[in-house]
């Protein structure tokens, strides 16, 4: 991790900086290194949507190599949705292409006076007028830029109308439907008048020990062949988890207040595969191929990227919708407008709940009856949110702000202002501290105890063992803390969480790629350091221990369903 491209949009200038090698070693890359590089810049008095908020794209030391499932890219800034540390990461091919173009990361400062986009082609940086692209959706934007560059293999990260309109849950989208969705990084990009950044390169990533790297990568690929969870993801994508999640009570229903909802079965990933699947799709050098390309005849869309499990639950069971095609289309609308499906779906489901409880009525929503089970209404609200039209203006601020607006902040299913993802902590108790302590707000990627307890993501060499999912003990807390540290390492490496070949193989790959001499203990120490640093940034932004808790209503148990023992 050596080269950082620093872009000043205000001045339309750029420079290349060398990353301090000791800093790179200590924080590895991805969101870890981003946190360290941005630590001095993210202060309480900066406006998340102001030119002073730095926006960082950062790859990791294994990105662009032969390492499987290591092609991700982290995007970080102060979050306009939460007000705290913001990070998101995306798959596809954008991370590797950035490295092939000559850079490990890109820091974007300032604000362009008018819409622009930036191309980075083999070390050559160019600023372009984005006026003709402004208003285009994310797919159109990516296709337009490839056409302008006359290069169909260019990789484009862009915003859609949601990012342009500073919707707080706007995503950055690349490789058509891959997204850095969480914490509103698309709004930060929009606030800078930056429509897109495109990469194309012919370079190669240098390896310190190519022979050693090849050997360990071979071993890692072998573990994938024997990994049942990888096989399951390959067969059915993340949506294949729907039936199991329903059984465990992990897939929330009725805005987390319905214990057992058998209609979830109609959202099954197996049904998706049988009736709507076109093909599986993968990120750079990923043998798991968990991505789905689907179609919906009902809504006349021939190519939809996804939906992933999180999207199915957010627009499906959470809103008591069991119309799979309607959910597919909701996911598609979020992709093209550039919206995070979790935050958008969850906020709409919360509005349904507010209607249900009589806190909201049609007079307050411009005549809209927003009820559970109405996926067509969700479609309408997605468009209104992306365009900030009517009641969509309020949804665009996110669940926490919307609930506070109506005087019921306790009714938002958020932690540190970020909507809780689709793994109910009452189903896997380890997820409760994961959500409560996660630096970016409620997040299943800062420790995945549901995966650990399912046996999908153990790291036994590090003391991360599958356990009893309802256990509430010191030991469970310690396992959770180790999982948080280990996933902080993953988020710094930018390795996908579905790739779990064992900790020592990851350690060997990192050392062979970089020439570093990490022991497993030191690697875990780096994970703790990164996790703690992000929390210190939050502390500097005003977060306190009072924020480290789940909403009360999400701690209530049910008498039926998969989490009846909670």
């Amino acid at each position, binding site marked *: 991790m050596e080269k950082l491209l620093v872009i000043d949009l205000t001045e339309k200038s750029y420079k290349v900086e060398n990353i301090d090698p000791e800093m790179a070693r200590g924080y590895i890359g991805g969101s870890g290194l981003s946190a360290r590089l941005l630590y001095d810049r993210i202060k309480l008095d900066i406006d998340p949507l102001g030119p002073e908020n730095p926006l960082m794209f950062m790859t990791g030391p294994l990105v662009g190599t032969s390492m499987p499932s290591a092609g991700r890219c982290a995007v970080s800034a102060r979050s306009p949705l939460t007000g705290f540390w913001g990070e998101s990461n995306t798959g596809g091919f954008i991370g590797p292409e950035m490295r092939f173009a000559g850079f490990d990361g890109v820091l974007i400062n300032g604000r362009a006076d008018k819409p622009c986009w930036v191309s980075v082609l083999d070390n050559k940086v160019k600023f372009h007028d984005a006026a003709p692209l402004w208003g285009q959706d994310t797919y159109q934007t990516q296709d337009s830029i490839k056409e302008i560059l006359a290069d169909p293999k260019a990789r484009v990260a862009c915003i859609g109308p949601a990012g342009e309109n500073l919707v707080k849950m706007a995503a950055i989208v690349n490789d058509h439907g891959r997204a850095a969705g969480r914490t509103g990084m698309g709004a930060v990009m929009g606030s800078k008048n930056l429509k897109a950044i495109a990469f194309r390169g012919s370079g190669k990533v240098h390896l310190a020990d190519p022979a050693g790297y090849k050997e360990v990568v071979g071993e890692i690929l072998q573990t994938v062949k*024997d990994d049942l969870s990888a096989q399951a993801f390959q067969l059915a994508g993340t949506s294949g988890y729907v039936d*199991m999640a329903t*059984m465990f009570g992990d897939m929330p229903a009725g805005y987390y207040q319905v214990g057992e909802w058998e209609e979830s079965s109609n959202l099954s990933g197996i049904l998706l595969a049988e009736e709507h699947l076109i093909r599986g799709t993968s990120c750079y050098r990923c043998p798991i191929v968990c991505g789905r390309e689907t179609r919906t005849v009902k809504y006349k869309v021939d190519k939809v990227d996804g939906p992933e499990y999180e999207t199915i639950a957010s627009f499906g069971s959470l809103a008591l919708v069991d119309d799979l095609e309607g959910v597919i289309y909701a996911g598609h609308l979020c992709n093209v407008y550039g919206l995070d499906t979790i935050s958008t779906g969850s906020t709409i489901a919360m509005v349904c709940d507010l209607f249900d409880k009589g806190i909201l009525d049609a007079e307050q929503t411009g005549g809209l009856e927003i009820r559970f089970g109405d996926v067509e209404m969700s479609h309408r609200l997605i468009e209104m949110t992306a365009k900030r039209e009517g009641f969509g203006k309020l949804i665009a601020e996110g669940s926490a702000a919307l609930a506070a607006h109506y005087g019921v902040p306790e009714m938002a299913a958020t932690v540190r202002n970020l909507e809780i993802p689709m793994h109910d902590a009452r189903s896997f108790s380890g997820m409760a501290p994961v959500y409560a302590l996660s630096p970016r707000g409620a997040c299943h990627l800062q420790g995945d105890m549901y995966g650990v307890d399912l046996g999908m993501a153990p790291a036994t060499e590090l003391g991360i063992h599958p356990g009893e999912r309802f256990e509430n003990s010191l030991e469970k807390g310690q396992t959770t803390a180790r999982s948080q540290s280990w996933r902080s390492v993953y988020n710094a490496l930018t390795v996908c969480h579905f790739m779990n070949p064992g900790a020592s193989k990851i350690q060997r790959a990192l050392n062979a790629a970089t020439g570093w001499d990490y022991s497993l203990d030191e690697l875990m120490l780096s994970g703790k350091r990164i996790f703690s640093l992000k929390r210190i940034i939050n502390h500097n932004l005003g977060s306190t221990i009072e924020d480290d808790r789940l909403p009360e209503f999400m701690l209530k148990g049910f008498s039926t369903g998969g989490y009846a023992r909670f």
Partner: protein
Amino acid sequence: MAHKFPSDEWVKAVRELLNNSDSYQRSAKDWEGDFIFVVEPDEEYADTAYLHLELYHGSSPGAAMVDPDNLPETEYTLNAPFSTWRKVIDGKLDPIQGMMTGQLKLKGNLMKIMRYPKAAQEIVACCAKIPTDW
């Protein structure tokens, strides 16, 4: 009366419980596909045993301990050492966790079984209800 595991009477007792279980019948109402459970030797059990469980549309038409030289063709086999089966049947190892961690080795159409996790759980629940002589 306790049944020895693994044995013909034990797997027949599972069949009987499944056929009397409303929740199994509901969760497996469209399921078609027999299983052979292979009990492998370890320090607690010296032999290899094969338990055949027929499963069709929420019921179990037949069950038997079968001879290794005359194994019926089944859609699925699930292998584990004796002590691992004991943990599953005693409720100390979740079968899905067991499969994901490779302690139970499944052969067969994974996609189909992912559609019916609750049925799998109900089978294990029935197994756990049988008084077992280890």
